[in-house]
C-alpha cells in the first residue's frame, strides 16, 4: 500500500520503538503533525521553545538508554534547535532531530522559513541528511537511528521538505542497514589489551581516569569490577560522574579545573594512567605542557580513534567499545593479578592529599550553596536524578552530590550551555517517570529556558528546581574577582523576578529559603508533602561563595588555588 511521507515518518518512529517525541509545530511539518494526531503510540511533548525540545530529548537519552527524538519546523524552528543540537554533539548524545524544510521545488529561492539546515547544522552533528525523494525516507531514517546510536554516539539531523511528507510511496522499514562508509570498530585489539594489562601490573603509581564514554557505553559495572580488582585510585571527569561509585574509598573524586586536590595530584603524579572513555580536554588536564612534564605511561581506551593522541601522546591506544575492552581486561586479570607492592605507598601519599580536605567550606550567616547540595543529597538519599545548568552551581552540584550510579548526573559538559537544566529535568522525567528529579540551577541560567515551566505544568512534571540564587552570574563574577581585579563587568543580575510568584503564576509551588536552618526542612517538605508538585525553591545564598579548588585557565593541574589559601 502506498502511504504518505508523513505517515512513513511516524511508522519509522514506531518501528524504532520511539515512545516520546519532543517538538513544536509549524508550516513545514504540518503533515507530520497531522499523522501524529491520528495515532497514540507515540506521545508528543509540546515544549515552549525548540531549544528546549532538543535539550529534553537529549536528557531523555542521557538518563535512559533510549534515543531522544525531536521534531521542529523549518527556518526559525531549526535555528532555535541548533543550541540543543550542538550541546548534544559536544557530549556525544544519541539523538535524531527531524526538521521540516520548504518544499524541494522552493529550496534555494529564499522561500518563507527556508534555511540551509544541512549547512547550518553540519559542524555540530554526527551526520545529517536532506531527503529529496519520498522513496529514500525510510532508509534515511533507519540510517539516522543507526548512526546516532553506534560507534561514538551523536545527534543526527534529518531535513524533510514538506512535499516529501505529502508524496506517497510503498513503505517497508529496512531490518538492517549496511553502509560501506560507516563501520565503527567495536572490538579492541587483543595484543594492545595484553600490553595494557602488562603495564597495569608494573605500575607503581597508577590511576584510572574515566569520562563520559563510560556512562554512554553503559560500562559502569565493568569499570567498577575492573577497578576493584586492580585496587587502583579512580577519578571521574565531570561527564564521568557515576561511572564509579562516588562513595567508594577508591574514588578520589572529580578531577580538572574544579576537581578535588587529591584527584588532580593523583592524576598528575601517576606513573600510569588508564584512561577510559575520556579525552584529556583542557578543563581536565589544564595546561598540556605542564601536564606533559611528568614521565608516565598512558593507556587510552575509547571508541573514537580521533580522541586518542589528540591532546596528549598515548603509549597504548585501544580503540573499541569500552565495556567489551574492559571485559577483556578483566578476563586477562583473572589469571591472577598482583599489583606492584609500591602501590601501597602510593595510596599512603593519596590519603595524605585527601587529608587536605579540599572541599571544606564554612557555613556562616548566609546559606552556602555547598550546604544546599549536601542537604539535597541527604534528603534524596543520593538517589535522585540531578540536572544542572552552567556556572558555579553546576560545579557545586558535581562536587557535593555523590553519584553512585551512572546516568544520574545530567549536565552540559562540553558546550557548557546555560539554560539546559529545566528542559533536561523534563527529559529525565519522561524517561524515568517514577524517579525524583532535581534541577540545580542559578538565577541566570534558569531564566534562559524559564518558559518551560509551562510545559512542566501541562505534563504535571514534579521537578524540584533548586535555584542557588546569588544575584550574580556567579561563575563570571568569580573570574572577574580573581583575574580582573574585581571589575564586575555585567555579571550582576538586576531586576530578578519574584521566583515564588513566578512559579505560582504557572500553577506550581514556590518557596523562598533565606536562612541556613530552613534549608533542610524546606527540602524535606518539597520531596514529601510536595512530592507530586513542581517546586521552585529559591535559595538566597551567600553571593560571595566561590568554587574551589580551582585550576586557573592555562595553569597546570597541580597549581590549584585552594579555599584555604585565601
Amino acid at each position, binding site marked *: 500500500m502506498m502511504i504518505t511521507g508523513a505517515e512513513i515518518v511516524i511508522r519509522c518512529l514506531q518501528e524504532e520503538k520511539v515512545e516520546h517525541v519532543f517538538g513544536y509545530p509549524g508550516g513545514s511539518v504540518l503533515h507530520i503533525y497531522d499523522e501524529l494526531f491520528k495515532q497514540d503510540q507515540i506521545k508528543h511533548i509540546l515544549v515552549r521553545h525548540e531549544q528546549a525540545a532538543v535539550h529534553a530529548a537529549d536528557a531523555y537519552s542521557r538518563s535512559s538508554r533510549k534515543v531522544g527524538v525531536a521534531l521542529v519546523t523549518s527556518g526559525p524552528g531549526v535555528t532555535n534547535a541548533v543550541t540543543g543540537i550542538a550541546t548534544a554533539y559536544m557530549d556525544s548524545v544519541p539523538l535524531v532531530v527531524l526538521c521540516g524544510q520548504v518544499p524541494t521545488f522552493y529550496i534555494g529561492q529564499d522561500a518563507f522559513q527556508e534555511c540551509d539546515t544541512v549547512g547550518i547544522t553540519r559542524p555540530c552533528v554526527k551526520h545529517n541528511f536532506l531527503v529529496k525523494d519520498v522513496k529514500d525516507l525510510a532508509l534515511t531514517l533507519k540510517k539516522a537511528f543507526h548512526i546516532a546510536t553506534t560507534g561514538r554516539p551523536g545527534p543526527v539531523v534529518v531535513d524533510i521538505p514538506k512535499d516529501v511528507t505529502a508524496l506517497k510511496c510503498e513503505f517497508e522499514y529496512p531490518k538492517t542497514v549496511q553502509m560501506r562508509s560507516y563501520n565503527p570498530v567495536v572490538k579492541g585489539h587483543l595484543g594492545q589489551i595484553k600490553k595494557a594489562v602488562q603495564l597495569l601490573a608494573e605500575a607503581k603509581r597508577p590511576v584510572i581516569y574515566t569520562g563520559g564514554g563510560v556512562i554512554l557505553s553503559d560500562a559502569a559495572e565493568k569499570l567498577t569490577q575492573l577497578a576493584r580488582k586492580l585496587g587502583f585510585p579512580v577519578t571521574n571527569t565531570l561527564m564521568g560522574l557515576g561511572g564509579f561509585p562516588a562513595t567508594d574509598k577508591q574514588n578520589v573524586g572529580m578531577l580538572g579545573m574544579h576537581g578535588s586536590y587529591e584527584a588532580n595530584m593523583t592524576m598528575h603524579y601517576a606513573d600510569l594512567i588508564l584512561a577510559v572513555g575520556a579525552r584529556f580536554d583542557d578543563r581536565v588536564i589544564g595546561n598540556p605542557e605542564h601536564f606533559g612534564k611528568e614521565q608516565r605511561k598512558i593507556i587510552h581506551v575509547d571508541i573514537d580513534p*580521533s580522541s586518542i593522541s589528540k591532546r596528549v601522546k598515548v603509549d597504548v591506544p585501544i580503540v573499541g567499545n569500552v565495556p567489551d575492552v574492559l571485559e577483556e581486561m578483566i578476563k586477562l586479570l583473572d589469571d591472577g593479578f598482583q599489583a606492584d607492592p609500591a602501590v601501597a605507598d602510593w595510596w599512603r601519599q593519596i590519603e595524605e592529599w585527601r587529608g587536605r580536605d579540599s572541599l571544606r567550606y564554612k557555613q556562616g550567616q548566609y546559606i552556602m550553596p555547598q550546604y544546599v547540595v549536601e542537604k539535597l543529597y541527604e534528603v534524596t538519599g543520593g538517589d535522585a536524578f540531578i540536572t544542572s545548568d552552567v556556572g558555579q552551581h553546576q560545579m557545586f552540584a558535581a562536587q557535593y552530590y555523590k553519584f553512585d550510579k551512572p546516568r544520574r548526573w545530567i549536565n552540559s559538559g562540553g558546550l557548557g550551555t546555560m539554560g539546559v537544566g529545566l528542559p533536561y529535568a523534563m527529559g529525565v522525567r519522561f524517561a524515568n517517570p517514577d524517579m525524583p528529579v532535581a534541577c540545580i540551577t542559578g538565577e541566570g541560567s534558569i531564566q534562559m529556558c524559564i518558559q518551560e515551566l509551562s510545559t512542566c505544568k501541562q505534563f504535571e512534571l514534579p521537578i524540584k528546581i533548586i535555584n542557588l540564587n546569588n544575584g550574580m552570574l556567579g561563575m563570571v563574577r568569580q573570574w572577574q574577582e580573581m583575574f580582573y581585579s574585581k571589575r564586575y563587568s555585567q555579571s550582576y543580575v538586576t531586576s530578578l523576578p519574584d521566583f515564588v510568584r513566578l512559579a505560582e503564576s504557572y500553577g506550581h509551588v514556590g518557596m523562598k529559603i533565606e536562612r541556613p536552618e530552613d534549608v533542610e526542612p524546606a527540602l524535606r517538605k518539597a520531596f514529601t508533602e510536595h512530592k507530586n508538585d513542581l517546586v521552585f525553591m529559591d535559595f538566597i545564598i551567600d553571593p560571595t561563595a566561590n568554587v574551589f579548588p580551582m585550576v586557573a585557565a592555562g595553569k597546570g593541574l597541580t597549581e590549584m588555588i585552594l579555599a584555604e589559601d585565601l
Partner: protein
Amino acid sequence: MRHIISILLENEAGALSRVAGLFSARGYNIETLTVAPTEDASLSRMTIVTWGSDDVLEQITKQLNKLVDVVKVVDLSEAAHVERELMLIKVRATGKDREEMKRMADIFRGRIIDVTDSTYVIELTGTSAKLDSFINALDAGLILETVRTGVSGIGRGDRILKV
C-alpha cells in the same frame, strides 16, 4: 611536512562541504583540493594537499575517517606515489616574446593549445614544483592569467585505493 591525502567518498550532495568544513573548523591547511567521480559513479575521489606535523596529520586522517561519507583515506606521501597537476597559462606572445614563449613551452614539455595574434595558452602537466618553476622561468610581466587544477595523486605499483 607536505602531505598528499587521497580520499574515497560517497558521491553525495554535501560530501565535499563536509570535508572542506572539517579542514576549516579544525584549522587544518588546504593547499589544493581536487575532486571528481571515479569509474564507479557512486564514489568520488578527492586529493588534498596539506601540511602539518605528524600529530596534525594523524588527526586529519582520523577526523576524515570519522566523517560518515568518507569510505577510505590514505596519506599517499607515506610511500611511493606519483602526483600531477595541470596548469593552463595564458601569456603575452608578441614580437620576440612569441618565439621565446614557444621555446620555454617546449623545454617544459608544455603544449600551446590556443593561439591568437598576441597570446598563447600553454597547457602544462607535472608536479606542482615543476609548474612553479615554469612560472618562475617566465618574465612575470608576460603572464596574463594562470589556472591550476590542484594536485591529483595515485600510489605506485600495487598500492591501490579501492573499496
